[in-house]
C-alpha cells in the first residue's frame, strides 16, 4: 500500500478535554481523501497536528514510510506538507506575489526580485490552472482568488501533500466548482490531498475515500464510490441514545417573531443571511438546525440589534424592530441568551450578582434617580441564584470564577425572569455538562408552556430534535425547510444541513427516500 501520510493512533488532549482519541488516517499517493465530521468533532485538530501546530500526546506519524516528528510548520513544509487554511493567512495589503514568497524570497544582490518571483508564480499558476494576478493586492481580489493564493503558497514551497481545511466555507457555488476542478488538476500533477469538510456533496463529487470522525473518535474509512450521502450522514451524526426530554404538546398561538426577506452581511461585507424568512409563534419552540457558518450568528445578531440588516424586516410582537438598538429590542419583549456568553452575555469581571442586573439595572427599583440600589440587586441575584440553581460561593463572586454551566444558568435566570414574550437561546448548552443541559432544556420548555415563544439555535442535532416543536434548517443563509421532529430523522436533517435537498437526492439516487 503506497501511503504518503500515515497518522496512526493519534491522541490529542487540551487539558482534560480529549480532542482526538486514537484516530488513524492513511493517505494514499494521488488520492483525495476526505475527513468528515460535525463541528467540534476534531478534524481541524487532527490536521493541525499533521501541520505541526500541535503536538500529539500519543500516536505516530509517518511520511512516505518514515516516522517523523513534526514540531512546527517549517518541518511540515520541508516534508512536503502544505496547509490551505480555512481562515486565510494572507497579509491584506501585500500583493499576491509578496504573500507567496514571504519567508522564502528570491533575491538579487539583497533586493527582492519581484519580477522573477512573479514570473515563477505565473508559471506555477498556469501549470495547475490556478488563475491569479501576481500583482494584485489581496484586499482587492475575490475570496476565490485569495484561496488560490493560499494554494499557490503551498505549491511554491514544493508541497506534495496538501491539506484543505473547509475550503468551500466562503465560496460561491461557481467558485466551489472551480476549486473542485483545481483539486482534480493537482492530483493529475502528482499531488495528494486531504480535504476537511462537512459538505457531503463535495465529498461525493471529488473524494476517493472518506474517513469519518465523530466526537474525537475515528469511526472508519470508506471508499466514496461504495457509499452514499445517506450513509455518510448517518456515520457523521451517529445514533446517540441521549435521554429524550420530557415534554407535553405545544399549543402555539399568535406570531411572536416574523422575519421577512432578511439580508445581513458580516463584518467583511459578505452576505451571510441571504433573504431569510422565518416565523416563530407564542407557545412553541422553534429550533434552527444548521452547521456553523451558514448565517445563524448574523441572523441572531440582526434580530437582537447587535448588527445592522441590509434588507428585509423583523417584527416582534407586532413591533418593527428592524435595525433598532439593542435596548429597544429588549424592551419590545425579547430575552436573549447569547451565543458567546463571554462576549455578549456577561461582564466577566463583574460579580455574578451585578451581571444578573445587566438588563434591568436602569429600571425601578434597582435604579432610582441615578442611584443604584445594590440591596435590590442583591435580592434579585439571590432569588435567581436559588431558583436557577447557580452554583457559586455567593453573589459577589466574579462571574469569571463560575463554571460555564453556572454562568449560563445565571444568564438564563436573568433573561427568563424578565418574562420576555420571545426568548432567543443561541447555543444555550454549548460546553455544558449533562446535568446543566437537562436543566436548561427544562427551563426552555417551561417558557413555552407559559405561552412564550422560544427560538432555539443549536449545532447539536439531538438537542434540536428533542427540544423543538418545529425545526427550521438553515443552509447558506436561508431556511431550506421546516419540519416537525416526529416527521423527520437525524439522517434527513443531516442531509439538509449539509446542503442536500430532498428532491435532489431523489433525482440522484433514483429511488424513494424513506423517512423514519
Amino acid at each position, binding site marked *: 500500500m503506497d501511503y504518503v501520510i500515515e497518522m496512526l493512533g493519534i491522541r490529542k488532549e487540551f487539558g482534560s478535554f480529549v480532542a482526538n482519541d486514537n484516530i488513524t488516517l492513511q493517505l494514499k499517493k494521488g488520492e483525495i481523501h476526505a475527513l468528515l465530521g460535525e463541528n467540534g468533532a476534531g478534524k481541524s485538530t487532527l490536521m493541525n497536528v499533521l501541520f505541526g501546530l500541535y503536538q500529539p500526546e500519543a500516536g505516530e506519524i509517518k511520511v512516505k514510510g518514515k516516522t517523523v516528528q513534526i514540531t512546527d510548520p517549517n518541518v511540515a513544509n520541508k516534508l512536503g506538507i502544505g496547509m490551505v487554511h480555512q481562515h486565510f493567512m494572507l497579509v491584506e495589503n501585500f500583493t499576491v506575489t509578496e504573500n507567496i514568497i514571504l519567508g522564502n524570497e528570491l533575491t538579487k544582490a*539583497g533586493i527582492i526580485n519581484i519580477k522573477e518571483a512573479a514570473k515563477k508564480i505565473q508559471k506555477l499558476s498556469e501549470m495547475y490552472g490556478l488563475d491569479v494576478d501576481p500583482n494584485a493586492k489581496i484586499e482587492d481580489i475575490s475570496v476565490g482568488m485569495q484561496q488560490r493564493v493560499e494554494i499557490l503558497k503551498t505549491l511554491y514551497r514544493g508541497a506534495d501533500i496538501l491539506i484543505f481545511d473547509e475550503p468551500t466555507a466562503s465560496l460561491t457555488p461557481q467558485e466551489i466548482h472551480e476549486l473542485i476542478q483545481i483539486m482534480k488538476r493537482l492530483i493529475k500533477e502528482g499531488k495528494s490531498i486531504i480535504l476537511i469538510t462537512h459538505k457531503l456533496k463535495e465529498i461525493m463529487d471529488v473524494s476517493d475515500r472518506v474517513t469519518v470522525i465523530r466526537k474525537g473518535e475515528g469511526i472508519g474509512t470508506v471508499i466514496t464510490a461504495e457509499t452514499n450521502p445517506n450513509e455518510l450522514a448517518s456515520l457523521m451524526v451517529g445514533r446517540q441514545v441521549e435521554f429524550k426530554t420530557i415534554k407535553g404538546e405545544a399549543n402555539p398561538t399568535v406570531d411572536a417573531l416574523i422575519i421577512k426577506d432578511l439580508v445581513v452581511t458580516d463584518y467583511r461585507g459578505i452576505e451571510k443571511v441571504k433573504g431569510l424568512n422565518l416565523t416563530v409563534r407564542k407557545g412553541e419552540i422553534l429550533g434552527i438546525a444548521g452547521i456553523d457558518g451558514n448565517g445563524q450568528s448574523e441572523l441572531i445578531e440582526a434580530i437582537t440589534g447587535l448588527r445592522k440588516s441590509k434588507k428585509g424586516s423583523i417584527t416582534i410582537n407586532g413591533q418593527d424592530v428592524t435595525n433598532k438598538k439593542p435596548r429597544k429590542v429588549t424592551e419590545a419583549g425579547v430575552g436573549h441568551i447569547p451565543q458567546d456568553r463571554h462576549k455578549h452575555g456577561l461582564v466577566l469581571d463583574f460579580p455574578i450578582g451585578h451581571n444578573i442586573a445587566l438588563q434591568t439595572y436602569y429600571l425601578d427599583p434597582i435604579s432610582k434617580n441615578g442611584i443604584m440600589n445594590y440591596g435590590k440587586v442583591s435580592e434579585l441575584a439571590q432569588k435567581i441564584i436559588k431558583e436557577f440553581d447557580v452554583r457559586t460561593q455567593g453573589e459577589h463572586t466574579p462571574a469569571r470564577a463560575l463554571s460555564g454551566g453556572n454562568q449560563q444558568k445565571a444568564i438564563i435566570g436573568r433573561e427568563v425572569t424578565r418574562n420576555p414574550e420571545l426568548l432567543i437561546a443561541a447555543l444555550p448548552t454549548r460546553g455544558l455538562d449533562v446535568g446543566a443541559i437537562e436543566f436548561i432544556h427544562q427551563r426552555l420548555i417551561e417558557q413555552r408552556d407559559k405561552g412564550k415563544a422560544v427560538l432555539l439555535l443549536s449545532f447539536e442535532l439531538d438537542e434540536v430534535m428533542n427540544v423543538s416543536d418545529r425545526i427550521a434548517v438553515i443552509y447558506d443563509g436561508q431556511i431550506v425547510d421546516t419540519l416537525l421532529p416526529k416527521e423527520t430523522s437525524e439522517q434527513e436533517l443531516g442531509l439538509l444541513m449539509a446542503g442536500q435537498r430532498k428532491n435532489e437526492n431523489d433525482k440522484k439516487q433514483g429511488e424513494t427516500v424513506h423517512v423514519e
Partner: protein
Amino acid sequence: MSFLDVLYFIIPSAIFYASPLIFTAIGGVFSERSGVVNIGLEGLMVMGAFIGILFNLMFVDTFGSLTPWFALIAAMLVSGLFSVMHAVASISFRANQTISGVAINLLGVAIALFSVKMIYGKGQTDYIQERFIRFDIPLLSDIPIIGPMFFKDVYSTSILAVGVAVLAWFVIYKTPFGLRLRAVGEHPMAADTMGVNVTKMRYIAVILSGALAGIGGAVYAQSISGEFSHSTINGQGFMALAAMIFGKWHPLGALGAAIFFGFAQALSIVGGQIPYVDQVPPYFLHILPYVLTILAVAGFIGKANAPKASGIPYIKGKR
C-alpha cells in the same frame, strides 16, 4: 524681503529643525511597522541628546572636529541598548506597550538629568566646542533658484537624515527583511506560518527605533542647542511620532511630514522676521505642529491606517 528671500531664509531652517525628527520618525516607523507601539521615543531622544553632549564634552580633545560624529555613534549605541527594556517588556513580558513607553520616557529624562547633576554638579552641561558645521554643497549650491534653497548652508546631518529616510524606504519595501517586517506588523500569525521569527523581527525593529531616536536626539543637541538640560528635548519625540502617523507609517511620508513639522518649528522661532508671518501671533505658530498632529491622527488629513497588529502582543499557538 521678496518671496524668494523668504524661502532662502526659511527652508534651510526648516530642514535642520526637521533632521532630528526625521531620524526619530524613521525609528518609529520601524518599530510600529513590526507591530510594537513605541511612545518612548521621547525618552530615547533625551538619552541620545544627553549621551551626544556628554561624549562630545569628554572626548573633544581626542577626536577634534570629528567628535560630533563619534558622539552620534555613542548615542546610537546607548539608546539602542536602552530600548531593549521596552522590547523586553512589550514583546517577551507582554506588558501594555503604552505604559512601558511612558515609563521609558520618564526613565530617560530622569537618568539623563541625574547623570548631568552627578557629573557637572548643576542642571545643565557646558556648551560643546565642536558642533556640526554648515557648508555649501559644491556645484549643487550654484544651481539657480533651488541652489541657495536646498544646498547652501547645509548641515551634513541633514543630508544624512534624508539619506537614512531613503535607505529606510529601500530596506522596508525592497528587501526580504522589510517584507517580513511588514508582514509581522500586519498579520503575525501568517508570518509565523511562513517561518518568519516574529519575536526576533520585533526585537530588531525596537532596537533600531532606539538607535535612530538616539541619533535624532544627538543631532538636535549638537546642532541646535549645543548643550543638554531638562528643556533640550521638549516634545520632539512625540512630534516625530506624529510625523510618522502623518506620513502614514511610510519612511518617505514620515520624511515629508517631519520637514513639515520642522517648518512649523522654524516658523515659530524665526517667524518674526518674515513679512506677513510676523503678524501672526507666535502662539499659533507654537501650537501648529501639535494641532496638525491631532488632525492627522483623527484622520482629517487622510485616513491613518496603522499596521494591523500594532500594539497587540503576539502569543504563539493562540488560534
